[in-house]
C-alpha cells in the first residue's frame, strides 16, 4: 500500500513536471492572418477558368464539369463564335454549395477549369459567393502552360481545317480510289 501511494505521488509529480517543460517547446499554432499556412500547389481551393496560350478561353462549354459535380453547383450555357469555337455564354459556380472535391477539374477535357491554393473567400452576403464568368476567368494558363485544345483536337474551326492539328493525319478521302 505504501508502495502504491509512493508510485502514485511519483506519477503525479512526473506528469506535472512533464507538462511544465512543455512551456519551452515551440508552439504549434500558426498566427493566421499574419502568418500564412503552407498550401501545396495542387491544393483544392477557389476554382478558376483559364485561357489557352493564345489568350482565348479554354472552356468549350461541354458541360462535363456540371455533370461531374456531386453537389450541382456549376451551371453554364453553350454558345458558338463565328469561327466555330464553342464557349460558355455564362458560367456560374455557387461557392456556397461547392465542396472543393476537384471532380470538375478531373472531368474537364480542355484543362479549362482548375482549382487553386486559395481558400480565403469569405463573404458577409451569401449571394456574393455566386461567382460569374468574369469572376472565374483569369488571364493566364493556370497549371498547364502550353496546352491549347483547338491545336491538338480534330475539330475544325475557322483558320484550322481538319487535319491541321498537331500530329494529326489528313482526313481520309472516302470518295478517292487510292488506298
Amino acid at each position, binding site marked *: 500500500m505504501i508502495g502504491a*501511494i509512493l508510485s502514485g505521488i511519483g506519477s*503525479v509529480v512526473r*506528469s*506535472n513536471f*512533464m*507538462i*511544465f517543460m*512543455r*512551456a519551452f*517547446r*515551440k*508552439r*504549434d*499554432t500558426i*498566427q493566421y492572418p499574419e502568418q500564412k499556412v503552407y498550401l501545396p500547389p495542387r491544393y483544392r481551393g477557389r476554382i478558376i477558368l483559364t485561357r489557352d496560350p493564345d489568350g482565348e478561353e479554354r472552356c468549350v462549354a461541354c458541360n462535363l464539369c456540371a455533370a461531374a459535380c456531386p453537389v450541382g453547383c456549376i451551371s453554364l450555357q453553350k454558345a458558338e463564335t463565328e469561327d466555330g469555337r464553342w464557349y460558355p455564354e455564362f458560367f456560374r459556380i455557387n461557392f456556397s454549395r461547392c465542396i472543393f472535391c476537384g471532380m470538375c477539374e478531373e472531368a474537364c477535357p480542355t484543362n479549362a477549369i482548375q482549382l487553386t491554393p486559395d481558400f480565403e473567400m469569405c463573404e458577409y452576403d451569401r449571394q456574393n459567393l455566386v461567382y460569374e464568368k468574369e469572376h472565374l476567368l483569369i488571364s493566364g494558363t493556370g497549371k498547364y502552360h502550353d496546352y491549347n485544345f483547338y491545336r491538338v483536337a480534330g475539330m475544325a474551326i475557322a483558320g484550322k481545317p481538319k487535319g491541321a492539328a498537331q500530329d494529326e493525319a489528313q482526313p481520309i478521302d472516302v470518295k478517292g480510289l487510292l488506298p
Partner: protein
Amino acid sequence: MSWLTPELIDVLIKTAQAIAILLGTVFVVAYLIFIERRLLALWQDRHGPNRVGPHGIFQIAADMIKLIFKEDWLPPFVDKPTFLLAPVIAMSAMLMAFAIVPISATWGVATDLNIGVLFFLALAGLGVYAVMFAGWSSNSKYALLGGVRSTAQTISYEVFMGIAVMGVVACAGSFSTRDIVLAQKDMWFIVPQFFGFIVFAMAGVAVAHRAPFDLPEAESELASGYHTEYSGLKWGMFFVGEYAGVVTVSALLVTLYFGGWMGPGPEYLGFLWFFIKTFIFIVLFILIRAALPRPRYDQVMDAGWKFCLPLSLLNLLATGAVILMRANAG
C-alpha cells in the same frame, strides 16, 4: 475638528485599506481568467488569447463586456430564491475569506482576528452551500448530480483540512494569521509541517473546486454540473467565486506554510514577497489543472478518508508530541 479623533482616523484608514484589498483581490481574480487561459495554452503548445491589446492583456475587458451584455435568463422551472442566492454565496464566501490574509506587516483586513483560521474554515464550509443550493434549485439532473458530488467531496475534505491546519495552529500557538506569520520568523512552517502542507494543499484545491477535484462541474460528464442552468452575470459570479477561491487558498498556503510577507530585504518589500509567493501558488494551481486528469469521486473519497485523514492525524499527533517534549525540556 473635534470629531476627527485619532480613533476615527484609525477606523477610516482601516476601511480604506480593506476597500483597497478587496478591489485588488477582485482585480487579480478577474485577471486570473486571462492568466489561466494563457498559461494553459502555453503548456499545450498553443498561444491562447493574444489579440486584444499587447499580448492580449485587455482580453479581460472584452470578456467582461460580453458577460455583462449576455441575457441573464431565469429558467421557469427553478426555485427562484435559492437559485438567486447561490451565486452570491459562491462569490462572497471566498472573497470574505481573503479578509484574514495578512498582505504585509501592516496591511490586512482582519488579520488579528482571534479565530482567524477558523473563520476561513467556516467560510469554506459556507461556500459549499453555494454549490449545493445551485445544484438543488436548478431542478435539472446534471446540476443535481453536481451538487450531490459536491456534498460527497465536502465531507471527505473538510475534516482533514481542519486537522491539517491545526498542526500550524499548534506550532504558532494562535489562530490569528498575523501571529502565525510572525511565528515563522526563524523557519517557515513548510519544514516542520510538510505533511500538513501536502494535505492542506490537496484540500485547498478541493475547496476551490479546481481540477482535478472539479467533480461538481465536470464538463465532460455533467454538462457544467451545478451551474448548468446559469447564464450571464450569475454564471460569472460563480467563476469569480472559483478564481477568488484560487487566490484565497494560494494566499493562505503562503500565510500558513511559507512565511507570508517575510523575505529578505527591508519590510516594505513584504508586499512584493507576498505577491510573488502567492503568484507561484496560483501558477501551480493552473499547472495542476493542465497536468492531472479528474479522478472518479469514489477515488477522491478513498484518497480523502484512507490517505489524507490518517496522514493529517499522524501529523497533528507528531506535532503535539514534539511541542510537548520541547515544553518539558525547556
